[in-house]
């Protein structure tokens, strides 16, 4: 039987993907994991790997748009007779949308979906059977999309609260990638209440290398569900990082993203070649709870603006237009609610309830910390807790957003090898 190559789902709202280029011509042999073709969606471009070894046939032409889950080619075993293109194993895209069960949707080169069998832990199968739940309605959050008992539990809870609510705490985080660039990729983790777009001004200085941005849970285009603890949040990020399947990466984290960068590096030290922490959270208890609260609760530009100004040293950066644009990204009430919940979890009573100074002390990964000395959200003096091997870059007249306030300096710093 030839192996089906399907159009993978690389971001949350992707319905179709466009084949930009094939790396392999029909009739040529590929080895599993080889780059097979490039796709482009409205937001990202990425390379898709061969899901199996074999000889490529029946390819969809370059420039064609293909619905996710639909075949774009078939891989034959050497000597296997190649006739007409086989009938697809995949469900039609419309049916998939109704009953979402795409295993490991973000993983490039995902294994072809099969209808009759999918991954579920024995415990999840037993639980689903006892509760009378069809496993194909549950989204798996485990490795390769394995459904685990937690997913079944979440499914039950989601059903009992709001029947229409999607399964929570499942699905990978929203990831976007730059086009081009060579070498060790940068993985960018934004701060609380921000999103991947906050890296825009710094990224122009990073374009020589691949850049990957991850939207945190309850932020941007990731699912709007607040993880119940810092540990869970860190574990979601770790899974997303693992899914990227990088040999190594330089992780850049701002504020909460800095704490999460430390959490990833702490458990994946061999996968992290360097860390840049910009005004990182987790190095001391203090944080400006009023500002977090104000930003979370603001429903109009008028109430958001004054709090946004506390983020930077020079108010003038925060123009009326900027505030309106920022408010637009926060229009979704579900997003604001999820972030309020997350703020209560991570920063109860205006205190940072998690401590990442341990990982910073024990990490053997080259690390730099960048901080503005007029930071009014997290005191820059937390940086002084770092041990001597960590490089400190402290800037006068800069607030909590160095990557926006002095984007060129920060961009060049990040691009400098550690």
């Amino acid at each position: 039987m030839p192996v089906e190559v399907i159009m993978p789902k690389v971001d949350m709202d992707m319905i179709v993907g466009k084949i930009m280029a094939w790396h392999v011509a029909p009739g040529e042999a590929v080895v599993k994991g080889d780059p097979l073709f490039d796709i482009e969606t409205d937001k990202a471009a990425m390379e898709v790997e061969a899901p199996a070894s074999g000889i490529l046939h029946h390819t969809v032409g370059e420039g064609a748009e293909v619905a996710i889950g639909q075949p774009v080619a078939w891989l034959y075993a050497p000597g296997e007779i190649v006739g007409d293109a086989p009938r697809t194993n995949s469900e039609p895209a419309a049916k998939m949308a109704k009953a979402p069960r795409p295993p490991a949707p973000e993983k490039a080169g995902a294994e072809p979906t099969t209808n009759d069998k999918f991954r579920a832990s024995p415990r999840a199968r037993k639980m689903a059977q006892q509760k009378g739940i069809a496993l194909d309605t549950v989204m798996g959050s485990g490795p390769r999309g394995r459904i685990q008992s937690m997913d079944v539990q979440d499914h039950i809870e989601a059903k009992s609260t709001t029947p229409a609510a999607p399964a929570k705490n499942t699905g990978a985080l929203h990831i976007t990638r730059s086009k081009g660039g060579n070498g060790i990729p940068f993985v960018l983790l934004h701060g609380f209440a921000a999103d991947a777009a906050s890296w825009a001004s710094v990224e122009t200085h990073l374009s020589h290398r691949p850049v990957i941005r991850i939207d945190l849970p309850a932020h941007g285009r990731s699912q709007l569900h607040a993880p119940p603890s810092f540990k869970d949040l860190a574990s979601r990020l770790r899974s997303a990082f693992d899914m990227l399947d990088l040999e190594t990466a330089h992780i850049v984290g701002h504020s909460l993203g800095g704490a999460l960068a430390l959490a990833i590096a702490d458990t994946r030290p061999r996968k992290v070649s360097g860390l840049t922490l910009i005004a990182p959270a987790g190095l001391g208890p203090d944080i400006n709870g009023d500002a977090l609260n104000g930003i979370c609760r603001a429903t109009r530009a008028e109430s958001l603006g004054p709090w946004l100004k506390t983020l930077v040293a020079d108010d003038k950066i925060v123009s009326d237009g900027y505030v309106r644009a920022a408010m637009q990204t926060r229009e979704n009430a579900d997003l604001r609610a999820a972030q309020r919940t997350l703020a209560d979890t991570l920063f109860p009573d205006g205190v940072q309830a998690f401590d990442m100074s341990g990982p910073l002390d024990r990490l053997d990964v080259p690390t730099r910390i960048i901080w503005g000395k007029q930071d009014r959200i997290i005191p820059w003096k937390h940086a002084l807790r770092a041990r001597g091997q960590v490089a400190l870059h402290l800037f006068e007249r800069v607030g909590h957003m160095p990557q926006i306030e002095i984007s060129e300096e920060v961009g060049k710093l990040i691009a400098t090898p550690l």
Partner: protein
Amino acid sequence: MNAPGVPETRELSYAQAIREAMDIALAEDERVVLMGEDIGVYGGAFQVTGDLVEKYGTERVIDTPISELGGAGVAVGAALTGLRPIFEFQFSDFATLAMEQIVNQAAKLRFMLGGAVSVPVVMRFPAGSGTGAAAQHSQSLEAWLGHVPGLKVVQPSTPEDAKGLLLAALDDPDPVMIFEHKLLYKSKGRVPAGRYATPIGKAAIRREGRDMTIVATSIMVLKALEVAKTLEAEGIDAEVIDLRSIRPIDRNTVLASVRRTGRLICVYEGVKTLGIGAEISAMVAESDAFDFLESPIVRLGGAEAPIPYNPELEKAVVPQIPDILDAARRMANGQV
């Protein structure tokens, strides 16, 4: 001062605890004799017997010639004819020389003679790597003997169990093989005074935990406990089971734990393939505990290689703390 009924405990090394058990047995039961190479005046290859020869004389602490097959044969014969011998091997590797007596005689005679006799022999095997003694003096062959019906095979990991399992072995009417890890001889722990027996075939939960079960044997128990301590700081709650006995295996304790945690890591020093971890994993897979698994089982065991002499390679071929830690983290983080 101890409350009535609570035995006094002292801190003893693992080797001292074994010697104390032998001392008690020699003093209480005149059928008990010690046999082995260099266990008399020399005090034993690892100085476990110590000065017992001075106390009990060469009639009861007997140096045997350099022939494991001969010595083990004498011990089996002595057991058949009414004594309670404790036979010490200098290195467990030399069990291979005595296999005829252990596997074909000691383990079989009760069955072949219709239950008319039993062979109450105890054999002690200094086992394991870590002493720079290379390929022929560092193996962990406990699973070999664990494969033989008619034997009982134990692996104490603490001084308390080293004493309690030896005394239990002497009480047992059938042959009991005790594998003692050489690196444990100097480890210390609280040991109750006087006579007590640690039941053979009963595992000990050394640390309770919710997130995963680590089943370990011998020195790997100590490593697993270190790992559990590190994991605790990371919010991962590992249960550590000291198997203590590999024949019979305490099925109930292992299965109950896996039903609770849903995840299993087996850690043992013997070669991974066809080893203790395979048995534990199969036990879970064949039982209803299977239904509670949340991820595949992970086994950490010795590499497919003789134990090398080079100290770094010697460490590399058996599971070390970072290996266990890494496996546990991967499991907790949903990577397996």
